[in-house]
């Protein structure tokens, strides 16, 4: 299995350095998620690793061979990238897009060999996009497009796949599907996959390793749970006004609540009412005003002082007028 070694790497554009002295190793057969705030240099790192952009200093080694010394074609057969660059509305079919993944292998006119055809078809069925094989890129959804891009990079048949924000613009179902797909690819083909992403919860669930990138600090690596336990994830997404809970992936406001309540009753009802109260900036404490909630014939019923009702919306209105 191929390892990608990053040694003393400085990245950026021209005189503008974005991150410095990065030392990392991407081991074979791993799914690694690169997390960090916008502008921290995730995309720049991925572009530098794939030689789309010159590093300012340091080296990148593919199995102890500097990628700069690798032949253009050889690099293309060993490391593939999916960037966030838009292809735009296109008349190209999904099959044609995937076939372009075979670019480094085909002859000068781009004729497909039997092996090329096999690889293309394998990539298409692995990504389960056979049903849109002949659809135009302009006519498919963002989720389908992203899967087609994964199929293209699979057809490129590289040991390492880099992917910049694979789930941007995708709905929740497609986001989970994308992570599942990447995991399956890793399991079945043993490829190393490095993705930059903002999906904290999905990364915690699917990644073998997280790379946490913070401004002006070395990149921290480790298993998601270790990093969560040490509070490293909260540090990366540090904000003055809220805390990101790495276990649930949810945000919690930091400001002191204007009023406290005490919630009692059935679990499911309590959690939804709690959600509503927190959303409005109220806190929960045992000495607060008591709200009782219960489930009567599958309908939530709340009691506050002498008032009673079934809609949480109404409850919030009453609290506001207290």
């Amino acid at each position, binding site marked *: 299995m191929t390892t990608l070694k990053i040694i003393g790497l400085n990245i950026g554009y021209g005189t503008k350095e974005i991150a410095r002295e990065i030392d990392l190793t991407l081991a074979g057969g791993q799914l690694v998620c690169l997390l960090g705030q916008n502008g921290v240099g995730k995309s720049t790192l991925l572009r530098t690793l794939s030689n789309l952009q010159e590093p300012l200093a340091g080296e990148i080694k593919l199995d102890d061979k500097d990628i700069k010394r690798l032949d*253009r074609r050889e690099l293309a057969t060993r490391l593939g990238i999916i960037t966030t660059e838009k292809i735009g509305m296109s008349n190209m079919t999904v099959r044609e897009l995937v076939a372009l993944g075979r670019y480094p292998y085909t002859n000068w006119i781009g004729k497909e060999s039997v092996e090329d055809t096999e690889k293309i078809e394998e990539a298409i069925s692995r990504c389960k996009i056979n049903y849109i094989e002949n659809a135009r890129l302009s006519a498919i959804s963002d989720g389908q497009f992203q899967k087609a891009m994964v199929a293209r990079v699979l057809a490129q048949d590289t040991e390492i796949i880099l992917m910049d924000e694979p789930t941007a613009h995708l709905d929740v179902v497609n986001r989970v599907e994308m992570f599942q797909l990447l995991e399956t690819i890793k399991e079945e083909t043993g490829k190393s996959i490095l993705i930059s992403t903002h999906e904290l919860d999905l990364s915690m669930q699917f990644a073998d390793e997280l790379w946490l990138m913070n401004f002006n600090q070395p990149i921290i690596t480790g298993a998601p749970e270790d990093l969560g336990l040490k509070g490293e994830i909260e540090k990366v997404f540090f904000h003055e006004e809220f805390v990101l809970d790495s276990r649930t992936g949810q945000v919690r406001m930091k400001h002191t609540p204007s009023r406290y309540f005490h919630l009692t009753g059935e679990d499911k009802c309590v959690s939804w009412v709690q959600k509503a109260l927190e959303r409005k900036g109220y806190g929960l404490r045992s000495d607060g005003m008591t709200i009782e909630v219960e489930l009567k014939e599958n309908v939530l019923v709340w009691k506050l002082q002498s008032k009673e009702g079934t809609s949480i919306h109404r409850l919030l209105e009453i609290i506001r007028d207290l």
Partner: protein
Amino acid sequence: MNRPLVILIAIFVITFLLDVMFGSVLIPLEAIWNILMGHAVEHPAWERIVFNYRLPRAVAGVLAGSALGLSGLYMQTFFRNPLAGPYVLGISAGASLGVALVVFGESLWLLFGLQFTSGFSMAVGAIIGSFLVFAVVLFFSAKVRDNTSLLIIGLMFSSATSAIVSILQFFSNPEDVQSYLIWTFGDLGSVTVNELQILFPPIVIGWLGSVFLIKPLNIFLLGNQYAKNAGLNMTLAKYGVISITALLSGTVTAYCGPIAFVGLATPHIARMILDTSDHRLLIPFVGFLGAIILMFCDIISRMPGFSHSLPLNAITSILGGPLVIWLIVKRGNISNSF
């Protein structure tokens, strides 16, 4: 071979024959056949007309039409911009400047002891002009990262060179202005048999070079980053695309004048008919289609049956304008045709 291409080649042959047949005098198909076979025909003058005027003109139409169509296709794919054509990158403007310098600078050149004979020197001026402007644009292309910036630089050079041309016009005598204007009208008929021999090799080199552009152009459809990650030699591909485009459109502009619309419209029509973005199919198709369109415009511009003819550029624009509008309206959005 696919069916649309076979049909297109048939139309191509018909258009070519029509282009030889029609003109101020109608020469019947049978007579053309006899002339080409070396048999005697009833009007000996026809033989002269066919060999000295009609055939060179039709061949020039084929060369120019295919060259303009192809360079339009390459520019549109390379810049991933549906508006691109030989006019961008300052190629046509550079040619105009070269011609303007030859025509208006006659007295200036005489000071250096240089005297030009019109036709040929205008062509040389055009070629040098287009390649010079192109070289400057190329120099800037190394400094900018994206193709859109390059497109804008090309447009800026176009307007700068046209400004210089208008200054030259302002200080020139009416006869020179007129001969310059006639060049800008575009004309296939001005290409003589001798000139055709000079026009032929660069265009053929351009055609042959196009074969090597097929694969790079297909990956360029995905944008520069993917092209690079696919192992494409970006520098070689960029200079390859740019220089073949300059060679094709620069040479044509030199001999036939700045012909509008063929370069812009042909690739769009081809993409619409073929419904593909694969350059393996597009390149031969655009080559033939460009030739057909230009020859068709040429036939109309000659106004069969009349002794006068109209400027070719007027015809390509009058037909091409509405055609492009129709294309855009039909597609709803022309940028999704790539």
